[in-house]
């Protein structure tokens, strides 16, 4: 069983929803990333999504693009991101790590060297935003060979045929993009998301994470009732941006924000369980 599967199995037995924070590796400066990852775990992160900075993050909004730009100013490369994962693993061997990024840096490193290095560093899953399953053939096989999960996105625009295609290609979990737009956009519609998740569940038994546009305890709590994981990116990165020159405050206030989300989600799922229990 992979670390991601183990984590979801444990959460399911507790009736809880996974909380997955996203940070860009090296933002706002490289030394903060590993301590922040540990602090996020202590604040209630179940899985960490570590962004690999790319110069042209087409699917991301301005907040995450600026995070990537800050990291790139420090010359952060994919190699250094893997070094950070290796450093994290010296103290935490259970929290799954998913790399989220764009294909080009992986192309440059080469699929096999990348997958081998990622697996050796302790990466668990890889989400390549601009690599749909149609183009993913050889990278997917290479990831599988190194026991790395291939995480894919599903979107509000994905018809049933694409749900089937992605359900067949994905492992670990599926990331449902909760709105049309880029990361960090607004106007989340909980009922619409619930309907879409139900439709996706007819095609797969993989856990379903929901992300894009979830930035408040209320939104996280609402999603916790309908999804297996809540992914929070821009709301975290925006807080880091506000504290860009104050590393010590990032290490306390950003985990503080996350633990607020955690508490709201746990309360929502406990209440939901209690009411389910009462209905029985």
């Amino acid at each position: 069983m992979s670390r991601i599967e183990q984590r979801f199995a444990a959460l399911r037995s507790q009736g809880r929803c996974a909380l997955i924070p996203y940070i860009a590796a090296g933002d706002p400066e490289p030394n903060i990333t590993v301590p922040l990852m540990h602090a996020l775990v202590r604040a209630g992160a179940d899985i960490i999504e570590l962004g690999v900075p790319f110069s042209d993050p087409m699917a991301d909004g301005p907040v995450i693009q600026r995070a990537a730009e800050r990291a790139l100013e420090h010359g952060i490369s994919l190699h250094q991101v893997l070094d950070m994962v290796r450093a994290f693993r010296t103290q935490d061997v259970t929290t799954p790590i998913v790399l989220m990024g764009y294909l080009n840096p992986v192309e440059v490193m080469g699929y096999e060297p990348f997958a081998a290095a990622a697996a050796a560093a302790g990466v668990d899953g890889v989400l390549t935003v601009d690599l749909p399953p149609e183009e993913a053939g050889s990278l997917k096989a290479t990831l599988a060979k190194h026991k790395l999960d291939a995480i894919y996105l599903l979107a509000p625009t994905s018809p049933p045929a694409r749900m089937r295609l992605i359900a067949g290609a994905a492992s670990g979990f599926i990331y449902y993009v909760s709105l049309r737009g880029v990361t960090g956009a607004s106007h989340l519609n909980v009922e619409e998301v619930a309907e879409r998740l139900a439709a996706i569940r007819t095609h797969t038994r993989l856990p379903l994470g929901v992300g894009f546009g979830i930035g408040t305890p209320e939104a996280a709590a609402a999603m916790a009732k309908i999804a297996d994981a809540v992914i929070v990116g821009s709301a975290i990165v925006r807080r880091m941006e506000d504290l860009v020159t104050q590393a010590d405050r990032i290490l306390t206030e950003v985990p503080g924000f996350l633990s607020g989300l955690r508490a709201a989600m746990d309360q929502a799922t406990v209440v939901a369980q209690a009411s389910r229990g009462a209905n029985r």
Partner: protein
Amino acid sequence: MKAYQLPDVHGHFGPYGGLFVSETLMQPLTELREAYERLRDDAMFQEEFAEDLRLYVGRPSPLYPAKRLTTQWGGARVYLKREDLNHTGAHKVNNTIGQALLARHMGKRRVIAETGAGQHGVATATVAARFGMQCVVYMGSEDIKRQAINVYRMKLLGAEVVPVESGSKTLKDALNEAMRDWVTNVENTFYIIGTVAGPHPYPMLVRDFQSVIGREVRYQIMEFEGRLPDALVACVGGGSNAMGLFYPFLNDDEVALYGVEAAGEGIETGHHAATLCAGRPGVLHGNRTYLLETDDGQIVETHSVSAGLDYPGVGPEHAYLKDAGRAKYAAIADHEALDAFHELTRVEGIMPALESSHALAYAKKLARELGRDKVIVVNLSGRGDKDIHTVATLEGIRF
């Protein structure tokens, strides 16, 4: 090269092209491909397109025998394909008319575009006005400063011009931003991409709309020479004017194809935009193609005196033609392009765009190399009025 039939059904030109976008865009791109495949074979649509090219753009554009230039260069006979005489002053409008018609058939009332120098933005704003569509153009804030007249032109045409402050604040960032708009507003919005790059089916459909250039050259050159030309020369940024000229000749092995990139201050200085000459394959903006990038795969900023060539990628079909050896790619430096700009202006009374001046500068070398009994067609992809300010500034003239 016989029976050329690319891209394949997945949008691949050999290892290049394809569909590298986030999931949200997969279905909209499928719908676009299906709509285009249906209309491509629809006689009514093609007639509508041909009529707009004739009556609105002013096609066919002349093939002009540049006799004084030929004499001056002392080599092959040089013909200029006068895309500069199109409505809006460049080849870009051939494509924007085609895509706007496509948008109308798909029921989209809002069009968006990215632009670097502003030429594609102007061509998009023009057809949006012509079809009564809402139009938003994304433009890097650096480019907005360099191209104030074109920004005003777009606004006069009723377009909203949105400055892009991210990244290098130039064309590639405008493209990122337009993609983001499209992801968000995909229900009612058609994204008019300006070159033969981006995810499938864009490289194919932009090429098809632009290939009117090469089809006209085929019959026009017969009237002068009674045979096909020995060489075609066109500048390559993203590569749409070159693809439009080359495509109808791909199966004619006797016609040599030359794409001319921007060497900027010289390839060795690193300040250039010569993607095919100095780059390597990677994935950007929805397709696999040659890119200018760092050792770890970050896209780099490019430089050219000509904003229209200032792009770190290139159309995937050019990447394929380069590897296949069917087309050859060379690079021309800023100062060589400027010399060609002046030479054509003085010798023929035609002021070329700085983009097209790159093609001319290379054609001069080629004309001498090939010798007097050969025939070269150069794509004069745009007129130079938009560049007067740039040229004057470089020469220390202030108005």
